[in-house]
């Protein structure tokens, strides 16, 4: 169980852990916007900032080794597909395009891993509630509970997928030809796992008389959080301004 560490919360007490979750979301959105601006200097800056943030949050790359392998493989696929797709525009452009898209993919994944590693589901609950509350006609409390519960279930299901893969491998049924059968042989155990997970979670929540409208962590604005966020966004802002004017 829990061999896959991705999108799990890693408890800790670093500055990043204690940062107001609203600022974490802001940072994440800022970084993604910078990545979609698409200059290589931005990529480099985000890579450096993420490295700093990961070190300050005391996250060891060891615990992500296996997942990183999977993502490197996906990045490789993205690289090759974009490389061949833009090959007619010249070898060098194609190489550049592929490298950038693969790099960007890894950075976005890293960002997601880091965010979930330092944000408790209850904090996310509070943020989603805070974001959706002003919109009329949207049941904010319910959707917030829904979002944080999904984040609880995602890593469990990913573990499940991993288990199913291993079980199939060990039984040698990975080479079935019939596509419908093949598809079903993965989906059936996955659905089984999901239903089990849902039942367990529902029972656990009911027995603790869980109430969707109760927030378990409150948001407090602190000046130091704003300063910290600004510190991590400033290099990107400066880069953007430099690119616009020079």
């Amino acid at each position, binding site marked *: 169980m829990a061999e896959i560490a991705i*999108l799990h919360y890693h408890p800790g007490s670093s500055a990043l852990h204690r940062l107001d979750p609203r600022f974490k*979301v802001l940072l*994440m*959105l800022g*970084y*993604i*916007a910078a*990545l*979609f601006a698409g200059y290589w200097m931005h990529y480099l800056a985000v890579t450096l900032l993420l490295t700093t943030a990961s070190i300050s949050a005391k996250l060891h790359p060891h615990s992500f080794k296996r997942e990183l392998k*999977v*993502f490197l493989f*996906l990045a490789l*696929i*993205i690289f090759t*597909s974009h490389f061949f*797709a833009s090959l007619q525009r010249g070898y060098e452009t194609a190489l550049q395009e592929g490298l950038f898209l693969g790099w960007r*993919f890894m950075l*976005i*994944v890293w*960002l*997601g*891993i880091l*965010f*979930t590693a330092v944000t408790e589901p209850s904090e996310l609950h509070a943020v*989603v509630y805070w974001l959706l509350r002003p919109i009329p006609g949207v049941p904010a409390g*319910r*959707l917030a*509970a*829904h*979002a944080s*519960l*999904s*984040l*609880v*279930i*995602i890593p*469990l*299901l*990913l573990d499940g*997928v991993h288990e199913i893969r291993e079980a199939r491998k060990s039984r040698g049924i990975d080479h079935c030809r019939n*596509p*419908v059968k093949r*598809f*079903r042989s993965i*989906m*059936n155990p*996955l*659905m089984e796992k*999901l*239903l089990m*997970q*849902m*039942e367990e*979670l*529902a029972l656990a*929540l*009911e027995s603790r008389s*869980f109430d*969707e409208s109760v927030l378990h962590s409150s948001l407090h604005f602190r000046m130091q959080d704003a300063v910290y966020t600004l510190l991590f966004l400033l290099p990107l802002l400066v880069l953007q301004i430099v690119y616009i004017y020079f």
Partner: protein
Amino acid sequence: MNNLRATVAAAGFTALIAIGAYISIPVGPVPIVLQNFFVLLSALLLGSKIALSSVFVYLFLGALGLPVFAGGTGGIGHFFGPTGGYLIAYLPAVVITGFIARRPKRRTFSTLNSVFLQFTALLAGTLCIYLIGVPWLKYATQMSWKAAIGAGAAPFILGDLLKIVVAFIIGRSFSSRVDEFLQLAFQKSSISEST
């Protein structure tokens, strides 16, 4: 219906749709995704109302930047990119699929009719995704109609037919258990209301 169980079920299917991102193969501008399979499945099993909130929260988490979109990416920029239409289209698709597929639950239909209805529902949902996704792709990339269909629809039709068949089979074998999961709650809440 008990709110808590409905929320848990919706959260479970949101997680399932997000997991679909990690079982996908990126090829060309539009990756082959399992997400639409799970989206249709959630509509089939949960009905349009709960499935809609499932898909909404999935899109919301993606917009916040969590890596839940195809190929393990995320970010609000996706909605404005060439494949944004496919994501937005999930919302009307679950409403349509859920609405058509859950009709036999209310009236007594023969098995043949309900099979027919479920297939129609799945086809309608898939069609809805294409009807919004392909024009979006065309306008976002300034392709011709022919090129947009060639890149955004034609390569996936076979895969989508396979997905429809499997979604139908899985939907049938698990619908009673999902109903039980939700129904149990219904009985409980009616007891608590009467006391």
